[in-house]
């Protein structure tokens, strides 16, 4: 079972409108550097609900989804 966790994100905003997330700060304050953005598409989260721009990101060699839902960011957290 997964839960929707809204997180703090540091991102770069480019002049052409592109947004590239750089760092995710977890609820306990731990910072996760995003090594690579593998994909960026509009998608729904089948696990926790909601939708937005879905970034498939690589963090410490593991893949994860990061969603930008309007002006907020969320991840599919494990419970």
């Amino acid at each position, binding site marked *: 079972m997964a839960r929707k966790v809204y997180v703090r994100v540091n991102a770069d905003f480019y002049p052409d409108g592109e947004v590239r997330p750089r760092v995710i700060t977890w609820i306990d304050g731990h910072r996760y550097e995003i090594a690579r953005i593998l994909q960026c598409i*509009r998608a*729904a989260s*089948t696990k926790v*609900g*909601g*939708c937005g721009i879905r970034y498939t990101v690589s963090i410490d060699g593991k893949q994860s989804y990061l969603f930008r839902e309007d002006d907020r960011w969320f991840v599919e957290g494990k419970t």
Partner: protein
Amino acid sequence: METRTILHSDLNNFYASVECMLEPALRDKAVAVCGKAEERHGIVLAKNDAAKRCGVTTGETIWEAKQKCPGLVIVEPHYREYIKYSQYVRRIYNDYSDQIEAYGMDENWIDVTASKRLFGDGSKIANEIRERVKFELGLTVSIGVSYNKIFAKLGSDMKKPDAVTCITQENYREKVWGLPVCDMLGVGRAASLELNRYGIRTIGELAHCNDALLACKFGVNGARMKRFANGEDNSKVMPRDYHVPIKSIGNGITFLSDLHSNDEVWAMILALSDKVTSRLREAHKKARGVSLTVKCCDLAYKEWQGTLEYPTQSMGDVAHRCFALFMQNYPWVKPVRALTVRAIRLVDDTIGEQLSIFRDIEYIERNEKIDQTVDEIRRRFGWNALQSAATLKLDKLPQNEDEIDLTMPTGMLLFA
């Protein structure tokens, strides 16, 4: 002339689907979206497939639904979310055409005739839209593909959920003509009953019906229904930026408890007229008439219309005319459960008007200045900054803190 390709896209169980999408824990349960029982809106507005299988129907009360389906999960409506997702879906349609006509919040016609060279035929575009809506938004749509709006709408109702149905000029006789006549857009409940009385039960029978009989019973609508049944609907899909002209502006409230006196009714009419005239001024319209709908405690209702002396957007004029209608017509046999005030026969407020020597122009101008001042105060400090004193002592008005202004076209535009 090239045969048109029109899609009709219908979001399946829209309100319930949005709730289930946002809250995955609901997905395996029978869910019904219902109005607030404490505000006496406790009826089923939408339900998901699991609730449908238990026999839950739209419009029935919560307790009736729970009797049929004891495990039914009731959720309150979240209109802001529904509007948001409705707009997201339209954004997907925008990628395929600029002719998108809304029919309520969850249905749209899309004319893709000119897009076929770019994206493929109607069926391919429909399937692509269906897949994208599911993947990008987690919702499902049923899409009808046809050469006119009527058959496209019929197609979207045929297979649900998450499906595409094509009705062509070659197969419409097999696919459409066997369906009950009431399934077709343009045939309402009363017309359907009347047609059934003459033995016309299917769309095919309507398509072959005698012209004279239809003209005699339904006038011009009879001929139009027959044309629709034969696939001869030429009405076009309006451009996406087309705004339907406002024909009336209304506001209705179901009270927390029934009204029992004229004083209470007057105060409520005042509150409703306040909202209606504020919206009139915002839309730069004036009303030449009003309509008042009164619903009794047994849910029976009656509507009366009246003409205003001159086009107006003043709260006092509308409220006094509505109250006069109420006093003339309501016999007070039963308490009042709900009231709706509507401004009708609208004209632009910039339009010149006939002056009369009997009219007190100074009085009208003074009222207009008061209205402008009220609007300005509310713009700066919120709606509740000013209210009429008569409504202050009433505790039967529901608290609409999260009120949203929602206007969705619910009719098909018949421009050829």
